[in-house]
């Protein structure tokens, strides 16, 4: 049997029971590997449940820094008897199984082609602790200790992490170090180490940060100046407002008065959340809500109002598997169409498409500026994969002294000076009208905001020409938006090619890796990463300049594909779809194989016709 041998390049998966405290132990392991200078990208695979159900933590250790899910498992840490059989079956041939050997298991429960590493974790924990909760929690640290020796992670790295985490809590610090060493000592006395897969110090983490997209989005909203947040709990977006609250408590409390420069309301439902955001945006505060697909469905009436009445709104949509309740704890990019065209009548909305926590930060901050500038709803379309998993990414940056773009808000002085105010009048040619905020001027600039049709001076009107003027202006505004949103990023192939690929959001790390893999197979593609909708002209040009452009995304129906075909009038046959939608994050293996197959088939067909 050939063992898997790999330094700084393997996948380790922890199978746990949720509510057992394993999440923090697993995160500790991932952080320790990163402190060794080796990139890790972990993913939580968890149920829609609080306690007692299976949960997994899959960590990809990859010196090259590919953060996409790889697929396959080299080492399984099997801590959950409920899922034992499927967990064992998932290990790659030649891989490793780590388990709690306190209770003997029949040989039929193991595989011949997998190296079995049993550590009596329960025995060790029970001997050291009497309190049941401590036994459980420290058992997790004990297995992390055992794994650290097997995989060659230095003890000092953990000790430093503990010291940072338990600063000022010396007793906790001491007991964690003790538990870690219980695991380490057992392996050192009883087993051969390190294994064929292991970690070796490297220098590939650099100044990157390790964080999740939801916290990053929340921080971006704090930096971007959101003062009103209204939300309703829904997986996987709940941690956005929660993190917003945490950061606000830290950064937005007036030191002199103790008063808050923010207001957060947990609303009674998504309809009320978006209603509050619309009210606050109408009244000149930067406001946001965070939700997921089902929440957007409930919000669509208000989204249409905000589009038509032209009110700044920021919506963070952390997408999950749909339709309906769908897969609440799994990932998809399946709300592209429902957000781009949300609400009845002719509507179009701006979507920002962050690829990682770094961009969740920048795009969320930018969304607030764009909302004010464009006076319309702006969606930040993240998903569960980026939102709820920690990811290595570029550190956050903020230009010192940068102000906010509050858009076209007419002041009392301008009104007093006699500047003409037509709330829905295009005076600058960019489709964006001027607005006034309630309370600005005693006699000038007041208007009635409504969802019904109106003339450029905000007077109720059902006249066809008034309606057409308004709808055409909204289109013009949308065109303006295409140049204000984050622009697409192109990666050219090493040699000229007629093949292109378009992708976006959380697909990005897997796509980058797939492009490298395809290149080694002499398959070359130019790649364009979309960062937003509406599409600027560069998207059109990219597609025109290639014969075939694959569109890679994580939904069943090729929603971005449809959006491109619909908005840019391309023949769908030119844009083959590469779709992954089982709820797990897309992998480089999947993308590379799907694209290679079609490129090779096309090459063969061409040869035949020649």
């Amino acid at each position, binding site marked *: 049997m050939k063992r898997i041998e790999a330094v700084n390049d393997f996948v380790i998966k922890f199978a746990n029971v949720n509510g057992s405290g394993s999440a923090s132990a697993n995160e500790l392991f991932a952080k320790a590997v990163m402190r060794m200078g080796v990139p890790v990208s972990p993913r939580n695979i968890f149920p829609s449940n609080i306690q007692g159900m299976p949960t997994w933590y899959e960590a990809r250790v990859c010196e090259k820094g590919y953060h996409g899910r790889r697929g396959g498992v080299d080492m399984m840490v099997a801590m959950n008897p409920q899922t034992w059989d499927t967990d064992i079956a998932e290990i790659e041939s030649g891989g490793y199984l780590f388990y709690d050997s306190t209770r003997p298991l029949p040989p039929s429960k193991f595989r011949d082609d997998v190296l079995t590493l049993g550590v009596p974790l329960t025995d060790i924990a029970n001997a050291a602790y009497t309190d049941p909760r401590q036994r459980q929690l420290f058992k997790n640290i004990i297995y992390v200790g055992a794994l650290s020796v097997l995989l060659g992670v230095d003890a000092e790295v953990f000790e430093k992490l503990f010291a940072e985490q338990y600063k000022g809590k010396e007793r906790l610090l001491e007991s964690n170090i003790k538990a870690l060493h219980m695991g380490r000592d057992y392996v050192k006395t009883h087993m051969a180490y390190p294994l064929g897969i292991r970690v070796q110090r490297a220098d590939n*983490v650099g*100044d990157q940060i*390790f*964080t999740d997209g939801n916290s990053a989005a929340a921080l971006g909203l*704090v*930096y*971007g*100046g959101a*003062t*009103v947040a209204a939300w309703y709990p829904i997986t996987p977006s709940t941690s956005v407002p929660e993190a917003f609250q945490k950061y606000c408590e830290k*950064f*937005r409390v007036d030191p002199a*008065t*103790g*008063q*808050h*420069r*923010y*207001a*957060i*309301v947990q*609303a*009674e439902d998504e*309809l*009320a*959340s*978006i*209603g*509050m*955001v*619309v*009210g*606050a*945006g109408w*009244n*000149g*505060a930067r406001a946001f809500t965070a939700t997921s697909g089902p929440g957007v469905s409930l919000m669509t*009436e208000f989204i249409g*109002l905000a589009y038509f009445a032209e009110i700044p709104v920021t919506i963070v949509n952390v997408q999950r598997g749909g339709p309906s309740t769908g897969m609440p704890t799994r990932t998809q990019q399946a709300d592209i169409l429902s957000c781009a065209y949300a609400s009845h009548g002719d509507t179009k909305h701006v979507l920002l498409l962050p690829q990682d926590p770094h961009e969740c930060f920048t795009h969320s901050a930018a969304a607030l500026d764009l909302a004010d500038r464009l006076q319309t709803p702006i969606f930040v379309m993240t998903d569960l994969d980026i939102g709820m998993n920690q990811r290595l990414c570029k*550190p*956050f*940056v*903020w*230009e*010192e002294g940068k*102000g*906010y773009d509050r858009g076209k808000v007419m002041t009392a002085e301008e009104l007093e000076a006699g500047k003409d105010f037509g709330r829905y009048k295009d005076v600058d040619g960019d489709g964006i009208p001027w607005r*006034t*905020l*309630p*309370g600005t*001027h*005693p*006699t000038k600039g*007041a*208007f*009635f*905001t*409504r969802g*019904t049709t109106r003339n450029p001076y905000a007077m109720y009107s059902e006249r066809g020409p008034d309606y057409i003027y308004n709808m055409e202006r909204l289109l013009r505004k949308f065109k303006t938006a295409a140049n204000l949103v984050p622009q697409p990023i192109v990666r050219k192939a090493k040699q000229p090619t007629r093949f292109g690929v378009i992708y976006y959001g959380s697909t990005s790390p897997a796509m980058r890796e797939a492009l490298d893999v395809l290149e080694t197979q002499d398959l070359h593609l130019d790649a364009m990463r979309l960062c937003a909708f509406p599409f600027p002209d560069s998207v059109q040009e990219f597609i025109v300049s290639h014969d075939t452009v694959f569109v890679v995304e994580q939904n069943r129906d090729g929603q971005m594909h449809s959006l491109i075909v619909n908005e840019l009038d391309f023949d769908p046959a030119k844009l083959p779809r590469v779709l992954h939608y089982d709820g797990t994050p897309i992998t480089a293996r999947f993308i590379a194989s799907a694209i290679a197959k079609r490129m090779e088939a096309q090459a063969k067909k061409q040869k035949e016709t020649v």
Partner: protein
Amino acid sequence: MTYIAKPRLHHPTLHTNKVGYTRRDYEGRISTLCAGCGHDSISAAIIQACWELDIEPHRVAKLSGIGCSSKTPDYFLGASHGFNTVHGRMPSVLTGANLANRDLLYLGVSGDGDSASIGLGQFANAMRRGVRMAYIVENNGVYGLTKGQFSATADRGSKSKKGVINSDSPVDLVGIALQLGATYVARSFSGDKAQLIPLIKGAIAHGGAAFIDVISPCVTFNNHGGSTKSYDYVRQHNEAVSRIDFMVPGEEITTSYAPGEVVDVAQHDGSILRLRKLHADYDPTDRTVAMNYMQQHSARGEVVTGLLYMDPLATDLHTALNTSEHPLNAFNAPELCPGGKALEKINAALR
């Protein structure tokens, strides 16, 4: 309804209030509602109340939902910003607007369809949160714009214009507001201006969630025999608990009353509501008493009106959230953005 444009010209002898406005400065566009509609009387009462309160019109934000009543904000306070939102969702929009700028006065105008059917949840939750606002429901028990269907406040056994008998129990918005913690609850009748104007003034001056249910007969679809929301029915069954005078701080009190006849209730801003009691034993600062009283009288088919309950020292959502005195919408990057150095520290903690 009239097609005659309102003359813009004001008579030079028109009285101005303390902030220099005439009553006409509080008017809006010509109403497009049916002639005799109760809602127009309420609009007139709002105009009168704001003028008498010396409120600058632009310091009021008026919000509404959808329906006949929700059209009315166009017909008063033309110099105020208005927002005709979506059906049943005015409370959430008003809540957000209020959070953005606590310096303005918020007037929510809604109807029985808007607040008791589609918007019952938002109505209830805005009351629970104590959003500072004057929330007026123009209650006619019927859907006017869609031509005469029963609304959720129509009494069981009442008859529609087409002769249908309503079999559903009515939603009692006053009862709900009392139960859910509104701190100023009143009921009035659009045909009783003398009662309605001081009630609106008290609601605007109130420091928390103020709710007024105004029975406002629909002359076109719900003013017939068998209706319990008609002018005749309400006049015959109106049971007022008190008569109210509203006095601003420092105002000289000239009328004298016999002892025990009046109760003065001072609100947080120093304004005084002087209640001339019509029912000697009614205590409007006792929520439980108010709820019982309402239940008993409603069982007898009486429409109890007047100031039913108030907590004179009520606080609001801003107090609960400890929000800045300074309006949130006036903050900018220097006050809101933690800056680059703080970000460096955050980055360091994430490595």
